[in-house]
């Protein structure tokens, strides 16, 4: 199997049994685990992300796809080299201080993981200093901020300012999102990117580090 279309299609069609079988077959046929991961599973989730953006697939289906993909990754894990499991990039994601909403953020985190990024989900109500501390600790190169209230959106700017003050601004690309957030707002506060849904967020993150 030189193109991985069957794996991608089977993942997009949410056929767990068939997908896991295809992954095993691929390994038996000597296909490198890293290729199965990148060109099959991750590439399949990229398609799921696009379909989500286009509203051809919906949240429960995306969750199911991520779950199936995770099982596929479990099969591959023992055979994956260290470089293959990690860095396409290290992402920090959290909801800003004063805001407790997390559903969208968690979907974004999941889609980014499925896209092959290492993701540290800090949770909700995260203070600017905490984000800064974690950028250093996890050596992150992408920072994702989420807010669902117009009243907590200004905290996004405060967080970015804190990153600038700490001297870490050049180390991270900053992406923002959340229902009331717009591209214009993102530009205003000095973010590098804005995403309106989990699918485009994962795509956008990969674009930022390439």
């Amino acid at each position, binding site marked *: 199997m030189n193109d991985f279309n069957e794996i991608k299609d089977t993942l997009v069609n949410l056929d767990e049994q068939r997908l896991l079988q295809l992954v095993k077959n691929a390994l038996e046929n000597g296909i490198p685990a890293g290729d199965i991961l990148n060109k099959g599973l991750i590439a399949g989730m990229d398609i799921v992300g696009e379909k989500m953006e286009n*509203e051809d697939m*919906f*949240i*429960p289906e995306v*969750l199911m796809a991520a779950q199936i993909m995770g099982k596929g990754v479990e099969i591959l894990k023992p055979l994956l080299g260290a470089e293959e499991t990690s860095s396409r990039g290290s992402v920090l994601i959290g909801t800003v201080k*004063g805001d*407790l*909403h*997390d*559903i969208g953020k968690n*979907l974004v985190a999941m889609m980014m993981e499925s896209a092959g990024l290492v993701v540290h989900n800090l949770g*909700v*109500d995260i203070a600017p200093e905490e984000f800064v501390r974690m950028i250093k600790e996890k050596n992150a190169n992408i920072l994702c901020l989420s807010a669902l*209230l*117009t*009243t907590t*959106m*200004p905290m996004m700017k405060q967080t970015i300012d804190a990153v600038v003050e700490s001297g870490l601004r050049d180390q991270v690309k900053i992406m923002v999102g959340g229902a*009331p957030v717009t591209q214009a707002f993102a530009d205003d506060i000095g973010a590098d990117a804005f995403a309106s849904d989990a699918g485009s967020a994962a795509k956008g993150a990969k674009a930022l580090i390439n």
Partner: protein
Amino acid sequence: MFQVIGERINTSRKKVQAAVADRDAEYIREDVKKQQEAGADFIDVNAGARIGHEKEDMKWLLNTIQPVAIVPLCLDSPDPAILEMAYDMVDRTPMINSISLEKDRFDTMMPFLKGKECKIVALCMEDDGMPLSSDDIVARAQKLVKELESIGLKQDDIYIDPLVQPISTDSTKGNMVLDAVRQIKKQYPKVHITGGLSNISYGLPERKIINRTFVTLMMDAGMDSAIIDPLDSKIMATIRTADMLLGRDNFCMTYLKGVRSGVIKS
């Protein structure tokens, strides 16, 4: 009878924001009149979307709306200073939207509410985050009722919002809130239950049928009010029909009125 809190005067709605920015009083008044004609029991007023302008926007909206309001207003803001200003401006006893158990909000709202005459929307939200189980929701509701009663509010003044969460992320979220509502109403029969109806369908297609069906399940569980669009005739029809089915419409009068006026259709 189910109480409708009309949600349309909210600056997060495109046309309303434009009207507020342009100070188009006619537009706002027309909208309020239509909501009232459609059966709104409260008119929610939220000026929060234009960052940095909330105070003047809220002032302007209240001055614009009051001359044509025939029902109480629901003053909607996360900022107690705005609520304080708004409270002093209204003619009729308002509903205040809202208080929660989040420390900052709770600590500022409790002194604000003490001694005031109002209805209060109380969100089952705590600093830990979203509730994770029916028991979680019920425990938070109990805390809210206890605290609000301690500053002189009556159970009939309290509108608990159990925080409906999307079913798309977890298929137990529907039953979780339905069970919580049943338990809360059992323990506090006089307390009201309220909330928005669109969170349940977030992330799924054909949201309106989900919202409409969910409101009937919630009404059976004990929900007796909601923040909705009174001009959405399908959801209003669903609510009036459910009210009748639950025995709250003598001689099915309101239902028949609704059919004759064309609002209620199969």
